[in-house]
């Protein structure tokens, strides 16, 4: 239970104030977003996975609202309301409650009401520099409140994307593998399907329709669809457009004509995703893997090295860091570098801090293009628990 007693509340509050003072000393501006937020802001972007954990309610005027499940999106909103342009930069920090339904029950590691203390750094186009600044500040903060024993797990979906890009496979397969990156079971199923023969089947989709579209390439696909619907007395209803259906059917035909993913490619993807090692060893391992398969991924791996150099320059102790290729963040909105901090003595499933890059998030609050954004937050209840556990 969170903050059940006055003493516990005071301990959390004191710790949060200490953390916040470190953030402020590094020129991060304190902001205080509203606890009650419009539900759409969160749910349109993060989807049902988070929605099932969000306290949503309707007010007497019928507006759908929620108790904020996180402070990052409200902070994006605040920044966008203030500047309204993608080039504006800003550094923010916050300290306040957030709320999530805990499907497996509310406990001291998974409180449904928790105090989130965090930072957001928007608009810096020097990617690795911004990522280093955020990670270094989180480490400095954790040390300043007394945490000594911890490991940091990092990941970068950018390397995986580069690997997909370097493999000669249909675009749609790439998109699908990328979108399932955070869901290991669905990912394995997709990869298995793409590597078997026939690699895809569209069971149910009328074969004569696909044949017509394939044979009459010169004709308008939408027209072929309408004729098919007329012939079968099917009424066209709903918001999904015939254009979308045409696009999907056309891509299906390409998929059907594509070659399955070869054993070598599948093994390469699997070997890459199994990389889980101290950061330097991981970099070397990935390079070896690519070399053995005749690929370079030079861009993505240069970024990886540059980031490590920046880490060293900022006094980040690399021996604490290890890289997991299959780690893309627990929320699915990260677009590149991610990290989470694991305190010694706490379960692997309860990182005490985490963050990363999410360049698409500003779009949710109105931006019409990506905005460079890196942020991180500290689970203050878990941090307090880490001290308790280690004292025992």
């Amino acid at each position: 239970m969170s903050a059940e007693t006055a003493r516990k509340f005071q301990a959390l509050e004191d710790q949060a104030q200490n953390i916040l003072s470190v953030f402020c000393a590094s020129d991060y501006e304190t902001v205080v977003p509203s606890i009650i937020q419009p539900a759409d802001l969160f749910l349109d972007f993060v989807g049902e996975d988070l929605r099932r954990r969000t306290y949503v309610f309707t007010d007497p005027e019928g507006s759908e609202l929620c108790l904020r499940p996180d402070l990052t999106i409200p902070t994006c909103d605040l920044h966008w309301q203030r500047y309204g342009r993608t080039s504006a930069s800003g550094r923010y920090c916050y300290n306040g409650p957030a709320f999530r339904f805990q499907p497996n029950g509310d406990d001291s590691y998974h409180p449904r009401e928790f105090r989130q203390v965090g930072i957001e750094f928007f608009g810096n186009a020097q990617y690795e520099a911004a990522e280093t600044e955020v990670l270094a500040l989180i480490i400095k903060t954790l040390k300043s409140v007394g945490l000594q024993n911890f490991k940091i797990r990092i990941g970068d979906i950018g390397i995986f994307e580069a690997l997909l890009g370097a493999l000669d496979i249909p675009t749609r397969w790439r998109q699908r593998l990328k979108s399932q990156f955070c869901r290991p079971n669905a990912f394995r199923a997709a990869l298995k399907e793409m590597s078997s023969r026939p690699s895809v089947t569209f069971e149910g989709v009328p074969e004569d329709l696909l044949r017509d579209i394939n044979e009459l390439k010169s004709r308008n696909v939408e027209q072929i669809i309408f004729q098919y619907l007329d012939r079968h007395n099917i009424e066209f209803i709903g918001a999904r457009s015939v254009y979308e259906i045409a696009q999907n059917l056309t891509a299906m035909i390409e998929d059907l004509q594509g070659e399955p993913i070869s054993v070598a490619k599948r093994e390469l993807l699997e070997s890459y995703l199994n990389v889980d090692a101290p950061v330097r060893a991981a970099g070397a391992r990935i390079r070896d893997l690519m070399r053995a398969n005749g690929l370079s991924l030079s861009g993505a791996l240069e970024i990886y090295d540059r980031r490590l150099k920046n880490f060293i320059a900022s006094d980040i102790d690399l021996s604490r860091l290890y890289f997991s290729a299959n780690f893309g963040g627990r929320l699915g909105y990260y677009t590149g570098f991610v990290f989470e901090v694991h305190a010694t003595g706490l379960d692997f499933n309860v990182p005490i801090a985490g963050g990363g890059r999410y360049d698409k998030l500003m779009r949710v609050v109105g931006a019409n293009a990506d905005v460079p954004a890196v942020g991180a937050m500290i689970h203050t209840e878990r941090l307090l628990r880490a001290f308790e556990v280690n004292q025992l």
Partner: protein
Amino acid sequence: MSENLIIGVPSKGRLTEQTGEAFSKVGLHISKTGSERGYHGKISDINNVEVSFISTAEIANSLKTGRIHLGVVGEDLIREEIIGVNDHVKFLKKLDFGHVDVVVAVPDCWIDVWRMRDVEIAAQIYRRHHHRRMSVATKYINLTRQHFMCHGISDYRIVESLGATEDIPMTGKADMIVDETSTGATLKTNNLRILNGNDGVILRSEVNLIASKTVEWTPETRAVENEILSRFGI
């Protein structure tokens, strides 16, 4: 807590009649005590039983929270209302009435969508074109989430529907639905089609006799339960 075993049965409609018939068949006769419009009843021949006539949603909820010992209710409601079903209740017997399927249905004109995999792809294309998520109207929020999660789909939004769901895609308030159906006829008139195979059927449900695991069982209530179960051949 009294020493009586409390059994919740549907308070109105066809389900009330069918419950009475199912119990009569095994020699148990449910009747109201007091007024015909009252909410209390008894079972002939068995002492220490209180029959409570309540709504089906309340039966599911009371089994979960342990306000009743036994309940007669559809599996669909139990699976929708209770997270962690096996921790809270035990299914004792299918009663062979109240058959409904909880199904995933899409507009028939989506000739490219026949399985959940196709829904996943359609949802991704939809999001790129409409800058919002494809929406699913349903009253089965938890069953829908489980089914979609199981198929690795998160690019969608649930629109909660409290009344008739089948005509929602026609009116444009949502793109597809998850709903109960017994014959599929209403879906057809609303230009909808159930997805193929297991992808389209989330649950084949019927009314069950169900026991609560959260209620405090005493030797007395257990004895009454055994007597009822033995009549049902359990």
